């Protein structure tokens, strides 16, 4: 299969879906001239025109709000946030409007829109340009939160999001944009929303992870396999509402669970996954559930501190080994 970057995979998804459905349009900061910080929008304005590919004022509130309004008027907007961190600017629009409109109006309408939100650590971008904030949205009914961990899923998941009638937040890790991988050319290649994927089967312990942390989860699995521990690795893909069945079935088989994400550990998604497993499969557990995540500080600037903040493969390996002591 041909190999392309994660960024190109998302661009391909946008192109194919915009050709397929003329209700899709995209707006955000620096899309037309710059083509996106990671080149993820390059050439879109040339193909679809500046009526469908819009450079907005620097107004995240109006970008999200206008996307919601346009979706109510029959369009399928994509709102780019530049950096996930900037979603704080438009939180009212996200949690009081976008998430609630369908429900509080009794199903009279749908809100088919996608927020694209580049997140995660990248080369000392520091406290306001590096965060992984997915857990905030886990607590808000009415939104679906998804995130791919590789170029193929980046394409298939974005396409599925663009076809969904629910409002979706699509987190895309900034460090993954340059990553190269095999990506299907099939225009009907979709990654289903709401389903987790067992990326590697195993029998002794389950690692639940997502986004860029999947790489460390798989790395840890390889190290542990060499030491005789069989590891099952699940990529959640949809973070809210997450696929409880796949996680619970896996834990029933392996009897051990570790959740790993790049976001801050405290109050992170790991806590929710752990709670669900504790509620529904406690009797199957042979060891305490463990979590690996970033330290509880803002993201620091200096490379040495950023590295200290970052969750590591070794923490996953050590955590799992401790379960077998």
């Amino acid at each position, binding site marked *: 299969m041909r190999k392309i970057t994660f960024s190109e995979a998302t661009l391909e998804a946008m192109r194919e879906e915009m050709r397929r459905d003329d209700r899709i*349009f995209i707006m955000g900061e620096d899309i037309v001239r710059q083509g996106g910080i990671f080149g993820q929008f390059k050439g879109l304005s040339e193909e679809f025109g500046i*009526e*469908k590919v*819009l450079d*907005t*004022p620097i*107004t995240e*509130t*109006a970008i*999200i*709000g*206008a*996307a*919601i*309004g*346009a*979706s*109510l*008027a*029959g*369009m399928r*907007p994509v709102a780019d946030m530049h950096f996930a961190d900037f979603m704080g600017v438009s939180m*009212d*629009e996200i949690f*009081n*409007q976008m998430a609630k*409109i*369908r*429900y*509080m*109006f*009794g*199903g*009279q*309408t*749908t809100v088919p829109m996608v927020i694209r939100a580049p997140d995660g650590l990248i080369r000392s971008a520091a406290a306001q340009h590096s965060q992984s904030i997915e857990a905030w949205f886990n607590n808000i*009914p*009415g939104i*679906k939160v998804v995130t791919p961990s590789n170029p193929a899923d980046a394409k298939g998941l974005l396409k599925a999001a663009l076809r*969904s*009638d*629910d409002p979706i937040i699509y987190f895309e890790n900034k460090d993954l944009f340059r990553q190269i991988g095999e990506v299907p050319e099939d225009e009907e290649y979709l990654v289903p*929303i*709401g389903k987790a994927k067992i990326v590697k089967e195993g029998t002794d312990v389950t690692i639940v992870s997502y986004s860029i942390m999947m790489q460390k989860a798989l790395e840890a699995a390889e190290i542990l396999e060499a030491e005789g521990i069989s590891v099952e690795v699940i990529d959640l893909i949809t973070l809210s509402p997450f696929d409880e069945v796949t996680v619970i079935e896996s834990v029933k088989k392996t009897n051990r669970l570790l959740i790993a994400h790049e976001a801050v550990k405290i109050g992170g998604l790991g806590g929710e996954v752990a709670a669900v497993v504790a509620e529904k499969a406690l009797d199957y557990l042979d060891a305490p559930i463990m979590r690996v995540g970033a330290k509880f500080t803002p993201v620091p600037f200096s490379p040495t501190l950023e590295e200290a903040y970052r969750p590591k493969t070794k923490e996953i390996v050590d955590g799992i080994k401790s379960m077998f002591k």
Partner: protein
Amino acid sequence: MSKELYASFYETMFKIRTFEKRIEEFSMKGEIPGFVHLYIGEEAIAAGVCANLTKSDYIQSTHRGHGHTIAKGASVDKMMAELFGKRTGYCKGKGGSMHIADFSVGMLGANGIVGGGYTLATGAALAEKIKKTNNVSVVFFGDGASNRGTFHEALNMAAVWKLPIVFVCENNEWASTTPYLTTTSVKDIADRAVGYGIPGVIVDGNDVVKVYEESGKAIERARRGEGPSIVEMKTYRIKGHFVGDPEMYRTEEEVQKRFEANDPIKRFESKVISEGFLSENEIKKIQETVINEIDAAVQFAFDSPFPAEYELYEDLYVD
């Protein structure tokens, strides 16, 4: 101006007033749950503005939204049922007074967040521009809401993209329980239009004909693709911020004086009679029809069932 148009102004205003009076009664008795904000005294604005719109045009409303909803052509049966929290209401009992909407007539929703509607209305206007229709979007907001940051973001975006939208300010002088001048940098909200390079006009919001004409000009301008305007309607909030508001911040005399001098319905009634557009008999007939309609709506609401527990999870997600 035709007799029919005048009759429809009267009917809409009287319908809003009658609806609100019944709502006040049931809310005071506790039969309508939740917060209720009444539009009494401001009826001319919704009636006059919406008379310029078709069902394909959009409005975004506020927490004080019953008047806009009625004027846009929504059914009072389904509104009443919604306010009572019944399954037959517009939102199946999930929204209530602050979240009433009728998408079938372009009423995109009341909003419990002050200043929450601007950006949504701007997006609806953007959609119509992309689709190349002649439809327009109107957002209603209060004097208090004009201090929100969303006001600035939406107006700048609408102005720079010349979107088909009109910003209708209902300046009722009260931002909840605070006199607006104590928290607002300008006396006339329309002055703020200068900052966006767009027209800003001031209108007597209790004169339904003036409201109709002036908002009509802004709406037609938007339809022609010439961009947004701010139309500021000067009015006065007759009732408290919400039903049950003890109104410690003003005297009853002050309110009564303002209402008696400037009740938009009374003013219009004497105008149409003295100018010979409608007879007292014709007015009485309109009143009777409206009262029957509202009575029937109340009956419909009372007769309707509450939603069942299993409906809690319905309409959360599509897929």
